[in-house]
């Protein structure tokens, strides 16, 4: 332990509105499952000395299903996601991504909200949420009036830069809403980590697509982990692929074009886990694997 726990304060308010009121002065840091912040504490890296626990708030832990969308509260744990049959049937990439994260013990505590707000470019759920066109709802309390303020954005706009998000000080992620894909959508996700379990991504690629009558890609959404300073949608590669042909005569050209587009918008780094060159090459291989498994 490289921190002295007596130097930290933790408040655990009884309700969400109390939590928002406390947070509204912008001087506290919310903590949910703690699987990131407690590691930082042990390593002596946790700068925030005053924490507000939201871990126990039932207002933030729910999975709501409508005919067109699924909404997950920010406190939904990875285990909650893995155990939900509707998510497994409708959003299989999210179930898979949740199964990759940390250990079982981590998955029991770690929350979807924490995974998003921690804003690591290597996080497991963001690529799936990005290709599913998720939207995020943020809530806060007006510091003077205590009035509840709610904002909703496409998740693709949430990450601004390395570890920077749309969240204002005092604001909480309330929920993530994901429109249900159609049965015609093909889903793909693959993570390449440092090992098969308890691993952080070297890169990961998520994709969903529909294929039209003439072997053409009528819709394609791609997203990746660890290819940039934040989780990213790969818009340039998507544009290169839209209406591209998967017919046997064209697939090689389509793959090459997609790989080139991906290389052009990929800007990973060399770090302790891998190299930039490897990340770009493997992401392109995963994209090719996805394209070649689509029905031609």
């Amino acid at each position, binding site marked *: 332990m*490289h921190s002295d726990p007596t130097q930290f304060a933790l408040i655990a308010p009884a309700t969400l509105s109390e939590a928002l009121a406390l947070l509204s002065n912008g001087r506290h840091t919310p903590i949910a499952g703690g699987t990131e912040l407690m590691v930082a504490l042990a390593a002596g890296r946790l700068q925030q000395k005053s924490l507000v626990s939201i871990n126990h708030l039932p207002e933030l832990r729910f999975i709501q299903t409508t005919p067109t969308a699924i909404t997950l509260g920010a406190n939904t744990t990875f285990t909650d996601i893995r155990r939900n049959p509707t998510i497994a049937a409708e959003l299989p990439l999210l179930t898979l991504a949740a199964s990759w994260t940390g250990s079982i013990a981590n998955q029991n505590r770690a929350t979807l909200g924490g995974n998003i707000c921690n804003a690591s470019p290597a996080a497991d759920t963001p690529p799936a949420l990005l290709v599913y066109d998720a939207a995020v709802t943020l809530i806060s309390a007006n510091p003077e009036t205590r009035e509840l303020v709610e904002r909703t954005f496409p998740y693709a706009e949430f990450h601004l830069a390395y570890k920077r998000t749309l969240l204002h000080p005092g604001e909480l992620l309330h929920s993530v809403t994901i429109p249900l894909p159609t049965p015609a959508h093909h889903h793909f996700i693959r993570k390449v980590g440092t090992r*098969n*379990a308890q691993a952080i991504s070297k890169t990961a690629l998520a994709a969903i697509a529909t294929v039209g009558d003439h072997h053409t890609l009528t819709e394609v959404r791609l997203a990746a982990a660890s290819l940039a300073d934040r989780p990213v949608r790969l818009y340039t590669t998507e544009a290169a692929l839209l209406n591209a042909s998967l017919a046997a005569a064209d697939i090689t050209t389509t793959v090459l074009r997609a790989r080139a587009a991906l290389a052009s918008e990929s800007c990973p780094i060399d770090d302790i886990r891998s190299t930039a060159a490897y990340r770009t090459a493997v992401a392109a291989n995963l994209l090719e694997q996805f394209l070649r498994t689509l029905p031609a």
Partner: protein
Amino acid sequence: MSETKSILGSSPLRKEGRPKVLGAAQYIDDLTLPGMWHGATVRSTIARGTIRSITFAPHINWSEYAIVRASDIPGENAIVHLPKDHPCLAAREINHVAEPILLLAHPEKSALLAAKAAIHIDYDELPGIFNIEASEAAVAAFINDPNDTDNIIWPGSSEGGTPNCFKNYQMYTGEAAPTESALVEAFEAADFIVEGEYTTGAQEQLYIEPNGVIAECDLDPVTGHVRGVTVRGSMQCPYYLVHALTLVFNLPEEKCRVIQVETGGAFGGKEDFPSVIGSHAALLAMKSGHPVKIIYDRGEDMAATTKRHPSRTRLRTAVSRDGKLLGGTIDVAIDGGAYATLSPVVLSRATIHAPGPYKWPHLRVRSKAMATNIPPHGAFRGFGAPQSLFALERHMDKIAYTIGFTPEEFRRRNFLSTGDHTATGQPLVEPVDMHHLLTRALADSGYHAKRAAFAESNQHSRIKRGVGFAAFMHGTGFTGSGERRLNSLVHLDILADGRPQVLVSSTEFGQGTNTILCQVAAEALHLPYDDILIHEVDTAAVPNSGPTVASRTAMIVGKLVERAANEVLATLRTQAALPTPHTREQFIAAAQRHHAQQGFLRASVRYEPPAKIFWDDDLYRGDAYPGYAWAVYVAEVAVDLNTYQVQVTRFDALQEVGRVLHPILAKGQIEGGIAQGIGYALYEKCVYKDGHLMNNQMTNYIMPTSADLPDIHVTFEEVPSLHGPGGAKGIGELPMDGPAPAILNAIENATGIGFNSIPLLPEDVYERLTSLTARPHGGAEDLNPVVDQATRTESPEVNA
């Protein structure tokens, strides 16, 4: 004798298993002594230089703390090894990152953090030497110009060694001069000369429980002098720590008491390092007047304590057209880190294992341990053998492909067998049958069928599969005259209630020492296993049966326990009318009778070298080990060309380790060693920057998880040895030697590419594959290593 089921070869419950499973076992951090303080270590942040000043910030009330510096050490400022180059605390010179400079203790553990942060150390920094090549370059510069000592980081010592080189060996298959001449002729006559260079990386032991100790100091209330010290801790070798304390405190051995508590894994990482942390805690106990506990956390343990020696091995081999080794030279270099520590001994095992299980008509092995500004490398399961055997077993495949043989057939033409002499001139008196081991291992693993099937399926798949194997041996016990010098002693006591108790300094750290030694005693005494007690390892009570290292416990210490048991039996038969055969009740009655009539019964038995064992330390010739375990390991891999990841998909391990004492523990030892070997080959990389270990945490130091490991099939050939109890030989280190070369041989089978460095990470596979594509002409030989048989080949990259 009554016909009962043999206890040896059965798998009784571990002696200490019950409290471990129930969570009742007390590890060092579970213990608290009255008035105990907590200690911490202030370490260097540079790799090389000198301390200019140490400043204590005024906002801390330093009078609350005990502070120890080098000048406080009552004895010598040295951790005991042959040369006394390794300071207990750095006084002025810094030779590696995380070198201990000051020790702090305080009643509150949390008060240590702020204090450490409030100590500022200024240095005059010098450029560091961080690998073997840089250390060699410094030697070359020094030889060229004796005034150029800028990069000489270790001067040599009166106990041996030369500038930047802790130790070197030359080992010949005969007299030096005639062997050199014979080698010249062998290379002249060779149809093929095959060369290769192979490197291995550092590896962290990753015992579950980090290093930790509690020390007490007995101070004379009048003079304040230290009258004695007691250290409890997690460790392998309590008498090593006793020895270290005698030097640091200038005390006689009987005033330095060491108690091993339950130890959560070691793998060599708690062989010599407890001498450092144990001395530190004892110094703080002296300074504070309180018991002091020091427990490293994972980050400190990984950054500051020993790892496996990185290595570079070059082989040059003369081979005939019919697949016979005619001669060879092997040059082994290991990176010893900043101080000599155990490097000479590790190097010795690397040297002696370098020739492998093969007949070499003429061979020269030269080896050296170089100094670098990295924390000292130390003992780790295998102890030098995994390094040189990796090189050899990769090279054997290279030779086979070069001369147009299969890896199997080439090895068969050169295997040692019973009656042959090893490269050190040791006659193999006990039966050795490598041919049979190879035949069985290849059959059990389906090797031939897989090779054929994969050759076909690889043509249509982005996942390339392959199989490979390694043939090797591991010497049991200390090298050469080592066991004679250790002069190990064990006691077997008969307690008042008639129960026998084993007293040894051999420690239990998960591998099964307690259990197998009690099995040996039970078997020899014809008593139930549950009747045998084993004494806590407390140097005030147990004799020095040697360190718990070198795969020596089962064979060497086990044999002493067996002899002690036989002595007890003989005494009870002659003096207490114990009948032959006897029942448990008769034994207890006789033991109690003896106790009543003649008092306490203790059998003490000392190591006696087998009469024929001979070893010459100067020539490095003779009987290197009392026995060898022999093995053939087969790895099956899948290389995914989408991700460049290598997955080991199946592993078969066949070994001849003499009589297997406890099949479940033995299988566990082999499986665990193979898992560590897979980590060594494919996952575990120590990333250094300017001498700092950058990945000193388990999220970034990647050890394989159960999800990364294949089915491991463990089988034994049981050929009883003369030397061990019930015919047992050593087993602990053997499984570390074979996985890495078997896996890289399998990767060459899968991809056609020979990789010669470990750890081999996906990024390395990617780099190699893309460089081959980019430069097709440069890489052609790599893709197809089988070359024209009539052509002599010499790889250009190697300067021997």
